[in-house]
């Protein structure tokens, strides 16, 4: 009895879970594996369409009476690299109309012209003509002829499914792509973006956690950058930071803080001198990191605040009795209570910053030293249109991510459930 019940339970569970699992599998997991396949192929953006035979129909008059017409079909293979085998052509005509001097590849029966064009190599083009006449010598309506579209069919390989593989893409990723620079930029961006967001998150949470008026409003306002659409925010920042008429530069020049506007998003390096030491700062990258911090510290803030509000007040009261200073209270009570959430936040934000695409893309497009791995996927895949190469970079990202996750679950995975 209970056996059949648990069987029913299992069957029910699978029916409930399966649709969601299948969808996620098709859209999220399958592409990750498909990347592996594509990354070993030499394939470009223009190759991904399955080759098709195409025809454009043009109707011309050849006599005054218009009882005879000439039809030109501009035939072509849509692919520049692949052949199409066994191309079949078919076009229908109204009754009482028949072709004259039909091409030997074709035959005419029951109002249809059917042709067998054989194989078309890549880039194949042909102007194929059919002359038609009206059997009773009446005028043929050009529009009716024109409105009938020819049907073409043929067999071609799906370029994604062929089995010729190459290691070229990975060679290019590691040797011809400034790989070290790319990796360093990505880590620089990820690390400082994460740390900055967490530091500002702690500060903001500490502020809002105090007894001040309007703290609920403050919490709402602090979350604005996080909930706003990235497109709108990124363009607002580009406008603000614009060197020619951006508000920030105009303000700084107006108050004589700087002499000439600084191109904060378009300049790769800026030379700074502190205490006599000159060093170069990655300017555009730093600006992008600040945007990143601005946009994502609210998340850290929210989590830390939730944790802070759960700390029992009695701890602080006891500390007051012992005569602890505010700094001591922060170091000895608050910090130990939030280290767990901070380590989780660090890992989560680290992984997401590592994958960040939109923010950098919208601010700089990856120019002036802000090219990170995700930006590189886009550049290779869609700007250079080398899909194989783009996939290879994706694979590198996935591999790095998997190793982060292993570290994450080793170090703090168990604690993740406690928070």
């Amino acid at each position, binding site marked *: 009895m209970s056996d059949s019940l648990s069987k029913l*339970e299992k069957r*029910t*569970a*699978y029916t*409930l*879970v399966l*649709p*969601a*699992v299948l*969808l*996620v599998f098709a*859209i*999220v*997991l399958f*592409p*990750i594996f*498909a990347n592996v396949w*594509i990354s070993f192929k030499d394939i470009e953006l223009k190759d*991904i*369409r399955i080759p098709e035979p195409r025809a454009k129909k043009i109707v011309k008059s050849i006599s005054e009476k218009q009882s005879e017409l000439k039809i030109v079909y501009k035939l072509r293979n849509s692919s520049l690299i692949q052949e199409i085998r066994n191309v079949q052509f078919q076009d229908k005509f109204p009754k009482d109309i028949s072709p004259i001097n039909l091409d030997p590849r074709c035959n005419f029966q029951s109002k249809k012209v059917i042709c067998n064009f054989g194989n078309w190599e890549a880039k194949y083009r042909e102007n194929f003509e059919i002359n038609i006449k009206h059997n009773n010598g009446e005028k043929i309506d050009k529009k009716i002829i024109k409105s009938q579209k020819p049907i073409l069919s043929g067999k071609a390989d799906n370029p994604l499914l062929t089995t010729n593989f190459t290691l070229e893409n990975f060679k290019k990723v590691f040797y011809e792509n400034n790989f070290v620079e790319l990796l360093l930029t990505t880590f620089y961006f990820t690390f400082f973006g994460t740390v900055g967001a967490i530091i500002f998150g702690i500060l*903001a949470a500490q502020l809002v956690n105090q007894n001040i008026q309007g703290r609920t409003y*403050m*919490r709402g*306002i602090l*979350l*604005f950058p996080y*909930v*706003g*659409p990235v*497109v*709108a925010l990124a*363009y*607002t920042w580009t*406008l603000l930071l614009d060197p020619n*008429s951006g*508000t920030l530069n105009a303000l700084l020049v*107006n108050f004589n803080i700087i002499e000439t506007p600084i191109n904060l998003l378009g300049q790769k390096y800026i030379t700074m001198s502190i205490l006599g030491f000159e060093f170069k700062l990655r300017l555009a990258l730093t600006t992008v990191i600040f945007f990143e911090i*601005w946009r*994502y510290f609210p998340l850290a803030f*929210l*989590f830390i605040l939730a944790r802070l509000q759960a700390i029992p007040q009695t701890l602080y009261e006891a500390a007051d009795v012992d*005569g602890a*200073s*505010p700094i001591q209270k922060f170091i000895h009570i608050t910090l130990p209570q939030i280290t767990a959430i901070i380590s989780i936040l660090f890992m*989560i934000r680290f992984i*997401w910053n590592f*994958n960040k*695409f939109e923010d950098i*893309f*919208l601010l700089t497009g990856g120019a002036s030293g802000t090219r990170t791995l*995700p930006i590189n*996927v*886009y550049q290779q*895949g869609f700007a250079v249109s080398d*899909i194989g190469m783009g*996939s290879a970079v*994706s694979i590198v*990202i*996935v591999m790095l*991510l998997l190793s982060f996750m292993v570290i994450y679950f080793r170090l703090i995975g168990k604690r993740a459930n406690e928070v």
Partner: protein
Amino acid sequence: MKFKSLSIFLIISSFFLSCILSIWKIMSTLQGLSFTNLNITPVFIIGILLSLVFVLIGNKLSHLVKIFSLSLIFSILYFYLNETSPYWYIFGVFLITLFFTNKLKKYSIQSLKEDFISEKIIFDFITLFGIVFFAFVILFPFYIMLVTSFKTQIALLVNPLDFSLDFTKSLSELFKSYFVIFETYNFGRYILISSAVSIGTVIVTLLFAIPAAYAVARLNFFGKNFLSTSILIIYMFPAIVLVIPLYTVFSQLGLRNSIFGLLIVYTATTLPVAIYMLQGYFKSIPKEIEDAGIMDGQNWFGIILKIIIPLSLPAIASVALYVFMIAWNEFLFSLMFLDSPKSFTLSRAIQYLSGDAETPRQYLMAGSVIVTVPVLLIFIYFEKYLVSGLTAGSVKE
């Protein structure tokens, strides 16, 4: 000891006052006032004097009289020390000083003798400063976005600091950018598409997520643990690595440039989050209520429909809002999949608009305002649900 805490008090408080007054000056500059100097030093010095006088007076005057008279004197001094400025600006200075002196209320010569008073002063003013700082840094870009959409390109090129709005103009003149983007750039259509995609995503996600979350929360089946851990891992995976394979497959299936294609992708990427958030809530519903339903002869469909859903409406609402915001704000997939203006979402349309260097910036900002306002309104109105959803899901942007 007393001297040390007094000087810290004077410096910190005056520094705070100078900061707010500088922000006020910057904001006024953006209203077209031509200031060229922040004058921090003189403001700082009279700020120190103000705090000193405040502490010295102590309780000799009633608090209200004290703050009013001190603020008045400060504003007059400020007026003479600074460049010529209109009266509304000085009135602002007066209000700020009033606010500031009111905050000084708890300090007196006696209180400066307390334990750790220097640290407390620093903490107090850092808190105040922090709130002003965060509010300014966060709201400033939103402010610029809004006011730019009401200006014209020429006016901004002539004086990039003048964001003052000319209310003598007619309303249609003021909202010109909005009319233009609706009429010339078809934003009405994009709003419809964005809404359709987002609402569609919410509905489809809930249809898939509620049963799955129920199974994960309640039923025993082989692979359940594996499923719940893989949910966690899947939403760590970035959209950018899905883009190339999805692009190729969608191209071959003809799903690019279609709202349907976008809907599938959004649903699949938000499903793990939705399931994770919902199953947590379902687990908290007492099992006895369901047992009663089973007794009545309900099957799982009836239980979900008649017991689970009505009991977890707040959680479902927060998931729905959350998914809506993700779908509404999404940019990467709409950039990759949509290249015909017929099927643009709002985000993609704004990006397309910015691709043309000739597009005046006020149009871009008007578009940005249009895409931002709905999310912010939803967020403000449903903040409670969303915040609980965000922290419960702990996830995804």
